[in-house]
Structures are given as C-alpha cells and as structure tokens.
C-alpha cells in the first residue's frame, strides 16, 4: 500500500503517525536514531508551520525539525 505513505510535512498538528522511511545519508539517519527518531516508531506532531519547521513528540522527547527535514521523513497512518 505504497500510496498511503506521505511526508511528515503534510501531517496536521495533533495527529499521530508511524515513521516508514527517512531519506538522508548515513550520518543524518544515525543522528536521528540517536535522538530516538527511527523507522517504525510512532510520533505525534505537536506544532507545525506551513511547509516549514515542525515540533514532534517521539516517546518522551520533543524534537524541532527544521525546514526541509519534515519533507525527508515519510510516515503512514496508524
């Protein structure tokens, strides 16, 4: 069901989704995973500015994702 994947930037605040893929180099993926954000994990969007940066809740961690980052993270609905 590939068509159900969409970038995190399209997720409205308050919604919970599951990370399917992270588009980025080895370094970026490792950094995100160190901070608790990795494929298969559930996250909730807390705040987002249109097409720009957003704040997400992963586990107990609140992360700021800068402009462009949210487009690199693909998610699906629960």
């Amino acid at each position, binding site marked *: 069901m590939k068509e159900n994947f969409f970038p995190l930037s399209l997720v409205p605040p308050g919604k919970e989704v599951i990370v399917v893929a992270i588009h*980025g180099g*080895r*370094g*970026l*993926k*490792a*950094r*995100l*995973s*160190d*901070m*608790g*954000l*990795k*494929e298969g994990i559930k996250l909730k969007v*807390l*705040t987002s*500015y249109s097409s*720009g*940066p957003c*704040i997400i809740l*992963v*586990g*107990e*961690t*609140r*992360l*700021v*994702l*800068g*402009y*462009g*980052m949210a487009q*690199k993270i693909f998610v699906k609905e629960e």
Partner: protein
Amino acid sequence: MPKKLTVALAGNPNSGKTTLFNVLTGMHQHVGNYPGVTVEKKEGELKYKDYDITVVDLPGIYSLTAHSIDEIVARNFVIEEKPDIVIDIIDSSNLERNLYLATQFMELGVPLVLAFNMYDLASKQGLEIDKVKLSELLGAPIVFTVATKKNGINELLDEVINLAEKKTTIRKITPGYGKEAEGEIKKIEALLLKDKDLIQKYPSRWLTVKLLEGDSEVIKKIKESEYSNQILKQVEKSTAHLINILGDTPEAIIADGRYGFISGACSEAVKRNYEERHTISDRIDKVLINRILGLPIFLVVMWLLFKFTFAASAPLCDWLDKGMGWLGDKIGGLLPGGSAIQSLVVDGIIGGVGSVLSFVPIIFLLFLAMAFLEDSGYMARAAFIMDKLMHKIGLNGRSFIPMLLGFGCNLPAIMATRTIEDRKDRLVTILVNPFMSCGARLPVYTLFIGAFFSEKIAGNVLFSLYFLGIVVAIIMAKIFRKFLLKGPAAPFVMELPPYRVPTIKGLLIHMWERGVLYLKKAGTIIFVGCTLVWFLSNFPWNPQYSKDYDALIEQAKDNKEMVTQLENEKAAEKLEKSYAGKLGKAIAPVFKPLGFDDWKISVGLVGGFVAKEIVVGTLGTLHSIGKADEKSESLRQALQNQTRPDGNKMFNPLVAYALLVFVLLYIPCVATIAVIKRETNSWRWPIFAAFYTTLVAWLMAFIVYQGGRLLGLG
C-alpha cells in the same frame, strides 16, 4: 594525604548535566578548550570525604558516534584520559532515549554510575522505578538525584567512591544484537584480538560494533593495524551478509539492539501510571510559538533584551569612563607633562585598558540576558520560530540570535554562534556578522547625518544604513553558501527542552564564564591594537612644526581662547605629521572613486580599526576642534565648510552617504577580529574577514557614489 579521583560527567543535552556540574563544583571551575577544537572543556574541583575529586563536564551528547565533534571529543576523553568514573546523567522523565547513551558507555567498558536526574518531576508524573532491579538489569549503580534542589548529591558521590574502591559488586552487561549479528561480531572480534596493542587500548567488542556502524574515526584507527586488510574485508563481508539476511543496515540493527535492551530492562523495572503527558511546557508553547503570535512575541522579547542590556549598562559604562579618566589624570600628574612616557601611560596603556573595559558592562549584561533565554528554554523556541526565514538564506534558525545580537555589539554576537552545531553554518554566521551595524558605528552616523541631511529625512537615512547592512549580510551569506562554504543546508534537528525557571547561580556562572573568556583572549589583542594605533598617531614625537607653537602659546597666554585655538592647531599638525597621518595621506587616493579622498577621513578610518566610534574623535582633532563628540556643532560646521584644494566643497550629502556606507561595512574593529580568531581557532578567517569586508565596503560605496552621480545627485 587526600586520594585523587577523576570523574567525567556525561549526558544528553537538557538532562540537567550543567546544573549538576555547578552543584558539585560551585565556583571552583575553569573553562578551556579541548586541544585543536573549539569545544569547551569545563573542569572543576571538590572535596568529598578523603578524596580530592576533579570533575570534567563533557559536552552534551546523544551518542558516541563520530558524527559530531562533541561526540568525538567526549569519547576520546573517556578512552584516552581514562577517568576513574563516568557519571551518566539521565533525564528520568525520558528514560529510554537517555539510556541509549549509557548503553554505549557500557560497551566501552568504563566504570559507570547512572544519575537519574529530575526524579521528583518524573515520579510526580507517575513514574515508578525499581532501582535495585533496574541497576542489576543495566549493570550499573543508579542514584536518584534532583540537581536543582541538591538532592541525592552525597549518595551519588558515595556510589562513585564505592565503585572506584571496587566495593560495588555488579555484573557488567552489554546489549546483545541478535544471533545473526552476534555471529558476525565474533568473526570480526577474533581478527581484532590478533592485534595486541590495539586491544590494550580499546575494548574489542566496542571496536567491532563501531566498525559495523561504519564509524569513520575507528576505521581510520584500524587502518594503522597490521591486520587492517583482513579486518576491513571481514567487516565488509559481515555488513553485506547482514543486509542480505536481515534486510537492514548494521547501524539500524545495532540501534534496534540497544533500544531493545533498554526497553527490555525498563519493562521489568519501570512502571508508568500515565498514558500521555500534557506538560505545562506544551501549554505555554500553545501561546509562545503560536503560528500567529509566535513571531511578534519573539520580537518583543528581543526588544526587551536590548532595552535591558543598554539601559543597565549605560550608567556602568559612564562610571568606568569616568574612573579611567580619573586614573589617567592621577597617574598622568605623576609623570612629566607633555612627555612621551606620559602619553604612553595615559593615552596608550590606560586608554587601551579603558577600551577593553568599556565593552565589559555590555558584554556581561548581554550574556546574562542570553543565559536567561537559554536556561529558561526559550532560545530553542526562538530558533524554531526563525527557522523558515533563515533557511531562505542558507542558514537555519540557530543563526538568527547571533545576527540580532550584532546590532548591539559584534563580540557577544560572534561568541553566541557556539550554539550552531554545523561548522559551515557557524562560519557563515560569523563572517557576515560584522555587517550588522553595531552600537559603536552610531556616533559616526549621527555626526555626518546631522551635518549633511535635514532633520526630516535623518531618521530614514539612518534606517537605510541599518537596512543596507542586513541586505549585504544576506547577499554575502548566500554567496558564501554557494561558493566558499558549499553544501546543502545542514539538516536542523534539535531537542526542545521543557521550560524551566533559571537559577540565579546558573545564570551568574554562565555569564561569568563567557565574560572572562572575552577578557582573557580578546582583551589582549584589543589592548595591543589600541597601543599600536596610539603609537602610529603619536610618533614621531616631536615633528617639524610649521609654526613655533610653544612660543606663540607663551605669547598669548592671557588670551584663553587663543591658547586653546593654538593647542588644537598644534594637535592637528602633530597628528598630520604622525605615522597615522602619513598612512592616511598614502591611502587617501584609494577613496577617490568613492568621493572622499580626504586624508583626514583616511586617518579617521585607520583609527576606526580600534573601535568605529574613534573616527569621530580623530576627525575632531584633525579639524583642530579638540575633544569633539558626535553632536559637536563646530565639528559639523568644519565638515560642511571643508574644501578641496580646487576650492570645491569636500562633502555633499552624496559623498557623506558613501562614506557612511563605507564605515558601516569596512574592516571589523580589532575586538571583533580578535573574537573571530578565538572562535575559529586560526588566523585564516579573521584575516579573510578583514579583507573581504573592506572590499565589499569599497564596492558598495563606489556603487552609491558613482550611481548617485549618474542620477545627478552629487
């Protein structure tokens, strides 16, 4: 004889590590740098029982990979300096993520104590931890602490000493990575064990795991081994095998293994009596980073920050100024009047120290205000709010605050770039920062705008200069991003800390650290720069004067006005004939295409290298007005009436504006240069900054002047 112990503090950013460090060591701290990098190294001392304990505060990190300089520094310290104990500070309300770092210390095999910090908050929110069981499962002693309330500190130190004295009996554990991966780890480890030297220094399992993670630093180390070929081939084979069998990269398998190990331990020993937390922070954020209100609130906060800094520092600066003047008079009185030695002490040394000190109130107060924003958690929100805008010029949200601080003073602004992780982002932010028009340039603007523009448009002219600085900064940032410091904008990810009430002690310590750093490093260079300019503008000490001033003054001694007039003329001629005067005359032709090829202005611009406001004072001396400030009407008149050799007026509004554009953009003051040197750890960038800004200034002034003439404005 007290026993010695070295303890390293490690932990995620926002785990309360700095607070714990402050509680442990109080004011007994010193800040340095790790060799070769600009990462701060904080150390402190304390006495506990019969131990002298040295505490090293490692940088805040999430992991021990080679992806960031902070992580490399932290892990090299632990591996090479071998601290007796590592305390890993864990945010109790965010256990899983914080324990991730702890698992890597376990793999490194270091003696580890876990401080479960902010335990009060976590337990209030419904967290129950079975300490004994969890510490058995994790293989490390656990202590509950609340650093802000100084709870659990003695227990923590007791555990440290018990572990150091090997009184603690605990089975060391490392996470497992599943049958497939473990099989491959064994194969690689077997090869590593052949290299006895290597194994002496690093635990073999840790090396193996790092190799599978593709750690660039460890691979570099292995390449020095005589078995490197065999080892790296096996790593490649194992990596391919794991991807083939498990369909996942080794890094992902290892990360999963660690998180699995942690959640396994937590599911047995931790109970959570809540579903999801709606914290106070989330509620505050609903307002403060609101889509509509966020930006206006941020701007008000920044306005308050400047208001506070300048309002509070103005009287302090005044006192300092008066104090230095008094000191100069007192000491000057003890030395022979009119001698070179008197001038050296009063104008050179005391004046030089004075210019270092004159920055102190502003710098310290600005750092205090910044520490408040940082410690309260608002700074991270500000970065979020400004991210989109900054992204457009190839930077990210973290670059905004330093840019804004530049309007006050470029020194603290450049020092504030330390919060920017990415090296290129940081360099670009540093390099364009001097274009933010600092407070010292205002007097020059005031003088010339007052002389050549009507009161009605004065405000607009002033605003246009500030605005031009911003535009030039944006253009240069884009150019640097495109050509000099190429590459896509670094992905910006940052943890959002909860709001906290800052402690007074924490604020003062942060302010003190940064302020002292400025005094120590930049102070020396500023002092040398000031003394140099003093020398240039005072020597040769006794030039050939065109008139015998001393005799004339003696003659006119009853006519006070006449005496002042003559003294001012003498000072003007002395400066004209000094090295600075000669330098000014030599470089004046460079400004011909810009309209202000006047040697007096050139001398002023040379002096402006010490501090931009000096331009005003130098012009005062050269126009025989004595001590003039930016509101001096006589200096304004002198400038208005100044003529060229051909009888035409030297200045008109267009020339004056071109000059102000040049003053806005040209070489940063010596203090800024000193700070760039300090913050980039090399002379390359400050020298580059000095040259390119001056080039940009020349070009912009050229465009303004020649463009203006084409439009018939001149």
